[in-house]
């Protein structure tokens, strides 16, 4: 418990089991302070000193936050990530106000996470290919497209907006259906699944919690799916990651906190 000067505070990355080796990745801050562990019995917080006078959120800060947490997850250590920007006065407050009251819930959530890490699969469309398919399959869109092309730009604005709306809706509909397919193909290999809402720009993004002994099989299944979609879809698989999409529900599922 060191006395910290007033401009310094404690950035909290996440919760891990006590005894976890602190990750080596450069974290949040400029320059990033080393990541250390504040432990209380079986649970610990991954923390780093930070200068409160500097706003947070540069690209390096965001990437630093993710790399610290993902390094832990890749080492097969369960970790409960905090949302970016969690800052507490000092390490004493981390122990007294965070770890001590929540010890049992955090421990139980970490146990549930044991051996699991998040993988996020993201499919985006090859623009021209998919737009062509949409025009080909939707006579109404094809007709509107021709009408717009024949009008001067100023006169076509309402129709262009309608055209874009129809195209965006068609992309979302495809995204939902492709998300269904992603979940059906990869979900059986995962302990839990979390799908993001489809948008025209991000049609299919799904996160999976996958047990370490299935990581290889999961990657193979994902690659097979990508092969099926080749030419139409760009497919990215990111992971192993800290369970960003699952941690809050995991902790909530442990019942009320000890202050209640």
């Amino acid at each position, binding site marked *: 418990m060191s006395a910290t000067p007033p401009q310094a505070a404690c950035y909290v990355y996440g919760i891990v089991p006590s005894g976890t080796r602190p990750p080596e990745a450069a974290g949040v801050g400029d320059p990033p302070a080393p990541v250390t562990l504040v432990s209380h019995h079986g649970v610990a917080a991954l923390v780093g000193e930070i200068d409160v006078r500097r706003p*947070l959120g540069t690209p390096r800060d965001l990437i630093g936050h993710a790399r610290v947490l993902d390094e832990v997850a890749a080492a097969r250590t369960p970790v409960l990530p905090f949302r970016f920007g969690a800052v507490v006065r000092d390490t004493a407050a981390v122990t007294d106000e*965070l770890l001590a009251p*929540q010890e049992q819930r955090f421990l139980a959530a970490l146990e549930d996470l044991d051996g699991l890490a998040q993988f996020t699969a993201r499919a985006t469309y*090859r*623009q021209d290919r998919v737009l062509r398919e949409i025009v080909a399959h939707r006579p109404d869109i094809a007709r509107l497209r021709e009408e717009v092309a024949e009008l001067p730009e100023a006169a076509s604005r309402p129709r262009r907006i309608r055209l874009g709306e129809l195209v965006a809706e068609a992309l979302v509909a495809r995204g939902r259906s492709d998300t269904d397919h992603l979940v059906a193909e990869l979900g059986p290999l995962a302990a839990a*699944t979390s*799908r993001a809402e489809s948008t025209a720009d991000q049609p299919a993004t799904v996160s999976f919690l996958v047990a370490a002994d299935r990581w290889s099989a999961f990657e193979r299944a994902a690659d097979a799916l990508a092969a099926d979609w080749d030419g139409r879809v*760009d497919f990215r698989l990111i992971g192993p990651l800290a369970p960003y999409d699952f941690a*809050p529900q995991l902790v909530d599922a442990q019942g009320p906190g000890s202050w209640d």
Partner: protein
Amino acid sequence: MSVTPRSSNYMSRPSSSGLVDVVDLILDKGLVIDIYIRVSLVGIELLTIDARIVVASVDTYLRFAEAVNRLDLADDKSQGLPELVQGMQEGGARHKTRGALEGVKDKVSGLIGGGEDEDDEEEPEERPRRRSRPTSRKGHER
């Protein structure tokens, strides 16, 4: 055995996440410290708080209208073998999609990169509702 990202024929397997991936992966995700810490929370200015604002719908629609108008449908007739061959030559996962579908991401990167000049006039419509909903959990055996 630690899993190192392997090269793959069809999907891209980034070894360390780039900024766009990180933004999507971590912003608005994870445990919220305010729920736990009441006394000693330090309010610190966050630059990214509104990073995922999407532009107004009309702009989005016009962007898609332009993309679909630009299409050269004459290519349709040659769809099939030539495109297949081209696809093979270009080698699956190395493709990069550009254009309308990437517009919002580019914008996000610009905002985070501190570009606060030309974006000021855009009217933020809403924060995208992309909060994920777990559909199942547990069910894993140890």
